[in-house]
């Protein structure tokens, strides 16, 4: 069953096309990775899906309802949550306040809903930051702030979770912990934009390769790895880049 679909979606900035006539669909419950070289339009696609950007043309359907043109907060309230490539949290508020803010959003405005405390505690335990709940987020390590990004998104109780390079800047140990956490999320449809192929292969049921705002290839991880065009345009470059960074 399709949860999200884009039809002839395009986005250009001052005539420069970043997403070009894109037809993309996602089944409920699947874990999809989006990969592609820098400038392929991956983050722009996430920004279009969450209403941060308005499409230049085409439409977005979520659970069969057209959501293109809707505001970000309305889309978020339908069950689409997003994490950011660069940490984007309430840095001066505590860990608990950040999670609670996201958990409370769909409840009453003048009294705290009793279920909020439980949701907050569950999320804090899941991201293993329950022992740091009173600390301001700005005092956390980069790895923990990345976990907080995921925690805040999960506290929204999303049906569709969009992760924008969640492991960027993490150590191998932290990357493994985050991958394990994402593995545990069975009932949520996940879209992950990621450069780390190990994370992609460990998580994704299916991979979409974007190139110049269009789908270059789509399929199961093994099919993508063996795709010659993908190897030429992205995977080869990516492995060279990883080799260089390892050196």
């Amino acid at each position, binding site marked *: 069953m399709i949860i999200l679909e884009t039809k002839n979606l395009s986005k250009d900035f001052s005539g420069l096309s970043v997403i070009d006539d894109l037809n993309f669909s996602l089944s409920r419950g699947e874990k999809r990775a989006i990969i592609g070289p820098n400038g392929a339009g991956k983050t722009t696609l996430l920004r279009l899906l969450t209403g941060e950007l308005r499409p230049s043309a085409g439409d977005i359907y979520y659970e069969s309802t057209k959501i293109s043109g809707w505001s970000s*907060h309305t889309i*978020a*309230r339908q069950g689409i*949550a997003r994490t950011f490539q660069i940490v984007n949290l309430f840095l001066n508020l505590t860990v608990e306040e950040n999670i609670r803010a*996201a958990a*409370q959003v769909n409840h009453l405005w003048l009294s705290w809903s009793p279920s909020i405390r439980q949701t907050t505690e569950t999320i804090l335990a899941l991201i293993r930051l329950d022992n740091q709940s009173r600390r301001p987020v700005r005092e956390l390590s980069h790895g923990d702030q990345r976990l907080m990004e995921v925690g805040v998104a999960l506290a929204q109780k999303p049906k569709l979770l969009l992760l924008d390079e969640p492991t960027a800047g993490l150590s191998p140990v932290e990357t493994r912990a985050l991958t394990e956490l994402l593995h545990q999320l069975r009932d949520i449809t996940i879209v992950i934009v990621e450069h780390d192929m190990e994370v992609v292969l460990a998580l994704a049921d299916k991979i979409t390769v974007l190139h110049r705002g269009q789908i270059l290839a789509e399929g199961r991880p093994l099919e993508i790895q063996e795709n010659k065009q993908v190897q030429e345009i992205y995977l080869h470059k990516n492995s060279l880049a990883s080799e260089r960074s390892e050196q």
Partner: protein
Amino acid sequence: MSVSIKLVLLLLITVLLALAPSFISVFQLSLLSSIFIWGLFALSFDLLFGYTGLLSLGHSVYFGLGAYGAALSIKHFQLEWWAGLGIGLLLALMVAALIGFLVVRVKSHGFIIVTAVTSLICFLLAQRWNGLTGGDDGISFSVAPIALGSIEWPFSSQIVRYYFALSILLLCFIFLWWLTRTPLGQAWKLIRENEGRAEMIGYPVTQLKFVVFVIAGTFAGLAGATYALTNRFVWAGLFHWIISADGIIWTLFGGAGTLIGALLGTGALFSIKEWLSEVWKTGYPLLVGSVLLLLIRFAPNGLMGLARSFFERRGRS
């Protein structure tokens, strides 16, 4: 500091203020009454600026409207004090809703400029519309006493004015303290901290800004109406943006985003001003300015920030 200690402190201060007329002079009572009224104005400003991060230079508009709403309705229609108070409050609420609808969509510097313009327009209108407002000379009026059965408390009595301003301030403080602790109050803090992220989580930022703008405007209107009733005089200068700037200074001096800080800041600056004006009659604004600069340099989070770091240091040692 725990909530129970805060409540005990608040109760002690309330009792002290309630007993104050028996041991302080009439002049000091008058000074305290002014602090209560302008403190309420600062409280309403703190909601907008300290909690939500909206720096408005047009907050004086609602103070002026509250004051004129009460003054004109009492002067021309011989209404009771409570009806005048209600009309001042309603007028401020309606205009705040109208202006708020237009300005909350404007962001950062634009918001400061647009709100300053609203204040300038209202000030010039009030100044020129002499027949209605009295312009710079203002208008005076008399208010019927507060009556409870056969007992009457006239507004000409300083003690009545003192208790009247104190009661309104206390009621408003308790309400606003509760409001800032609800999810709605917490949502305003999210806007101050990271507006974009709050929107992405699902908070309707523009609507939330509108709500806080109207509530803050209404409470500024209530402060204005209380000012009118206790002074029985209003003038065009109440709309001037400089009054909004005073609100900013009082809030920053006490500590923004704490409510109690806005009250402390107003009280401290009023008292410092009184004291320094006795020390150096002509040049006291220079001294007040120096005190302000020193506080901003060494305690950017105001008096409440100083108190907080003191308690934290004590807790650690």
